[in-house]
């Protein structure tokens, strides 16, 4: 089985609050998986556990079949060094971009390459220009983020993550902070990545994107995966009442018949 990512029985608790209550999930290489669910269902937490922005309370995560962390008396132990290295192979794009305002667009995209991957400046700059062209923003290389629109910022953030040559990309509600008219350009960029064979896990409220682009849709509810399958099936013929309610709540979005 060619799993890029495998998650076994993942739990995450914040104090008394259980956010994830046993998630099993596999993502094959080149697959785009969309996580759906209402706010507070744990989908962002799940995404953030994948690159250990949050430390799982229990469960195992494998990347390329290799277990992350080491087992210690029944639990898992994670070393910061291993996690840093892991994160270089997992790209993440955030709702609020998190671009570095004191650096130009090009410097933003070079930063991780130079500081973390220790690439030379010219190699990093070339790579940065390449990725900038990929997201269609070659002319913005020397701008500061403050001068970009939200959609452009988000595409720069995508380019910044891609420049690290990640095995897998995580998208955390990346269009939620954008003006509606800017959402399209970001989704288009993401669709292009899917078509290029990038492995992606996407948390989004854009049902249209899930329907047209995802290979698989997972619906989370109260910390567990309630439904999953091909988007055409899950989104058109939901098996559970909860999922139907969720979809009705999004009725402003018209899905094609």
């Amino acid at each position: 089985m060619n799993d890029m990512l495998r998650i076994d029985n993942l739990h995450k608790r914040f104090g008394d609050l259980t956010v994830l209550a046993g998630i099993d999930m596999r993502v094959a290489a080149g697959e785009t998986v969309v996580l759906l669910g209402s706010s507070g269902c744990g989908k962002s937490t799940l995404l953030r556990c994948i690159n250990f922005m949050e430390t799982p309370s229990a469960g195992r995560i494998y990347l390329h079949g290799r277990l992350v962390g080491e087992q210690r008396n029944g639990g898992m132990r994670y070393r910061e060094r291993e996690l840093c290295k892991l994160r270089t192979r997992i790209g993440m794009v955030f709702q609020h971009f998190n671009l570095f305002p004191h650096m130009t667009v090009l410097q933003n995209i070079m930063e991780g390459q130079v500081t973390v991957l220790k690439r030379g400046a010219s190699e990093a700059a070339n790579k940065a220009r390449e990725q900038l062209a990929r997201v269609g923003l070659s002319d913005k290389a020397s701008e500061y983020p403050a001068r970009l629109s939200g959609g452009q910022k988000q595409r720069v953030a995508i380019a910044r993550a891609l420049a690290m040559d990640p095995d897998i990309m995580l998208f955390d509600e990346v269009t939620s902070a954008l003006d509606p008219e800017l959402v399209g350009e970001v989704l288009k960029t993401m669709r292009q990545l899917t078509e290029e064979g990038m492995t992606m896990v996407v948390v989004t409220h854009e049902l249209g994107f899930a329907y047209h682009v995802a290979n698989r849709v997972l619906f989370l509810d109260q910390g567990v995966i309630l439904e999953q399958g091909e988007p055409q099936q899950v989104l058109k013929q939901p098996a559970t009442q909860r999922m139907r309610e969720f979809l009705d709540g999004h009725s402003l979005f018209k899905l094609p018949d």
Partner: protein
Amino acid sequence: MEWNFWAVLSDFDLLLLGLVNTLKVTALALTFGVPLGLCLAVLRLSTLRPASAVAAFIIEFFRTTPPLVQLFWFFFALPILIDVRMTPFIASIVTFSIQSSAFFAEIFRGGIQSIDKGQWEGGKAMGMTYAQSMRRIILPQAVRRMIPAFMERAIELLKTTTLVSTVAYTDLMFQANDLAQKTFRPLEVYTVVALMYFVLIFVLSQLSIRVEHRLAKSGDSTLR
């Protein structure tokens, strides 16, 4: 009463020497105090409880005790505790480096904490360590915001260094006392010295206002 500046001006080189020494103490205290302040701030912000508590204590202690007491402690008390020879110069540098570092630590802490959490996440997600994020992402942004507070603190430090004259370090104040006794012209001497401090600090504070305006104009706060 009759003003006579001649006595002062003929020995003006003494005051100039004092001025140089005042600047020397201030500059050295800044040189050691700023990095030390950064260390204290990082410790203070650490999630490691004991480290944070120790840093908090040091910061609070040096912010709440009078600098003159600190100076006397380092000059008179420390050599009794441990076998070191304290010259007035070294005692002054040690005192004001540590004393100002406590204030700088609070400025650093405020600056670092003012940076959006998303900036840390941006660095972390691309595999940066805490130190890398701090050095490359957080501090460059925080320092810009801290500049006005820094300048104000540096000026404050310059004024506080007059205390070193009490342990017989030959700063501007010490030289003034010396000259006043020698010439029996305290009125003229202290007037000139006050003017010297005024000019020096006025120029510095004008500079700091200039810098502050430029930062405001470049829109540091709207960059994101």
